């Protein structure tokens, strides 16, 4: 069973059920690690139509465990797209008006080149032979995809969490190619606490005997237990104390009293176990190592002599940042420091903090105030850019 699942995952990594753009030896991806990745591929989805002026494209950047299936059924899980509450015909990001692009990040496991992809050198999965991927590497690859569509300037780049890091990197690296930017629940660097949580997750994966030093795919096994534990720990950080208490309290799971054992007595335990179990069915463990690492390495100020404002010097991009009051992974202060840097750079910036107890994951949920802010920001940007947005 485990081997069968491993093969299904393997297929999605190399032959995804979404469009794929393949870059040959003539178009390598230059990596921050100091080497080039070639050949490589990007799996992506698009929604809506690119207009004649090529001015209505919105690039959506996904978070750590997201994928390109942002507004359509996910072929692996069978669930709706991860941001269908926001994106689609008649939605806040209206695919009748905008051309929406979302690609699987390089280092991911749903069809863009990542550790589960077959290396052309060995004919086996890269596993840990893949160089460490950075947020900027992901963005460089996305820029090559955007080039493929003949788009000089994206109308908007939007994303939450790790996706928000990509948005900031996009604006900093390609300011003239980003008309407006919407980084949500994110920061310009990963905090020590966040690196710590990621390290706990990685150690859980690597402690699983089935990880096999990263070569599990060759052995037809997968470190499911380790990855599930990593997901359980991470999932707690995506929520908030008050939301957990509201949803689960100390309620017991299908029983009247504690069993005086180590079964999942509490509902929260059962919930977390479920989160861990379902995650391993859709995600590659090595990919989890690579993507968590990319976030840890992200420090936009450090890339610009320690001064974050210098990352945005002279930028014309219009920004709207959003944070959530109960997000302890990327607390409001992280967004505020980006806002201060953008102010110092003289950039156009809006900043909305939304009151909610749903924690970091609030950006993925139906949050009317979030949608109102995105709607108002996009409409005003569309007026400035001369893009038709409708009533």
């Amino acid at each position, binding site marked *: 069973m485990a081997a069968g699942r491993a093969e299904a995952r393997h297929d999605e990594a190399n032959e995804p059920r979404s469009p794929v753009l393949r870059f040959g030896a003539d178009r390598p991806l230059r990596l921050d690690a100091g080497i080039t990745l070639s050949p490589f591929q990007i799996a992506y989805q698009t929604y809506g139509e690119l207009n004649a002026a090529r001015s209505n494209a919105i690039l959506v950047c996904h978070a750590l465990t997201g994928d390109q299936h942002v507004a359509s059924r996910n072929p692996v899980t069978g669930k709706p797209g991860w941001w269908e509450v926001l994106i689609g015909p008649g939605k806040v990001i209206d695919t009748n008006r905008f051309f929406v692009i979302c690609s699987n990040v390089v280092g991911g496991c749903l069809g863009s080149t990542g550790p589960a992809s077959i290396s052309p050198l060995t004919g086996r999965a890269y596993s840990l032979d893949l160089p460490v991927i950075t947020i900027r590497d992901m963005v460089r690859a996305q820029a090559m995809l955007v080039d493929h569509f003949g788009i000089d300037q994206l109308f908007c780049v939007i994303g939450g969490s790790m996706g928000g890091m990509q948005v900031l990197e996009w604006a900093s690296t390609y300011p003239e190619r980003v008309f407006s930017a919407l980084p949500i629940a994110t920061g310009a660097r990963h905090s020590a606490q966040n690196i710590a949580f990621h390290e706990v997750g990685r150690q859980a994966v690597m402690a699983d005997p089935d990880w096999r030093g990263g070569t599990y795919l060759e052995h037809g096994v997968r470190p499911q237990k380790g990855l599930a534990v990593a997901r359980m720990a991470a999932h707690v950080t995506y929520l908030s104390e008050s939301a957990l208490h509201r949803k689960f309290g100390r309620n017991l799971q299908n029983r009247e009293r504690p069993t005086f054992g180590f079964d999942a007595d509490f509902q929260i335990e059962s919930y977390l176990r479920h989160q861990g179990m379902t995650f391993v069915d859709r995600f590659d463990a090595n990919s989890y190592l690579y993507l968590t690492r990319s976030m840890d390495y992200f420090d936009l100020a450090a890339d610009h002599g320690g001064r974050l404002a210098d990352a945005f010097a002279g930028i014309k991009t219009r920004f709207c940042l959003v944070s959530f009051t109960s997000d302890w992974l990327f607390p409001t202060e992280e967004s505020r420091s980006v806002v201060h840097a953008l102010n110092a750079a003289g950039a156009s910036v809006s*900043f*909305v903090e939304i009151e909610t107890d749903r924690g970091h994951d609030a950006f993925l949920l139906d949050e009317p105030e979030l949608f109102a802010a995105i709607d108002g920001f996009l409409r005003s940007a569309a007026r400035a850019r001369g893009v038709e947005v409708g009533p």
Partner: protein
Amino acid sequence: MSVNHTNRVDLQVMADLIAPGSRVLDVGCGDGALLELLQRDRNVDGRGVELSQRGVNECVARGLSVIQGDADSDLVYYPDKGFDYVLLSQTLQATRNPRLVLEHLLRIGRHVVVSFPNFGHWRVRSSLFFKGRMPVTADLPYSWYDTPNIHFCTIRDFVGLCTEVGATVESAIALNDSGQRIGLSMPWWFWNFFGQQAVFLLKR
């Protein structure tokens, strides 16, 4: 941050002072009424700072470029002369350090427009003089113990502060109870007595 929403005739008076097409920062922009007016009528490139998150969220939903922030602590992040005009509408009296705020405004903007309620107005004086109580009027609706307005001043006080920080008064307008301008020919003491609010255009 903008704490006096009851009588906003000062908005149009302030808007009239702004050159079309300029870069404007509205500190304490409230619900964004002035920014919206300026964008519509004067085609400005407008930004706002507002203390209340509700105000900010409303502004952004209306397509205005506004951030949550505090005039007392956040102006330090803005570069020198980053804006043609910095506006402070009905907010100065609610800051912890009005002098420091004014100095930041003069640093950030080529011109500064400040509007504030005049504590030298005859109604305020008469409340103190005859009733011996802090004034609660339609214009200043708060009781002394829960007011956000912690640094009231009179028109003459404000002129004194301008001198102290080396600001040049380019233009000054006083509005009476019914929101009408008080004649320019009138002396300061007249303004200070009958002006319910004042609007100053400054530079340094």
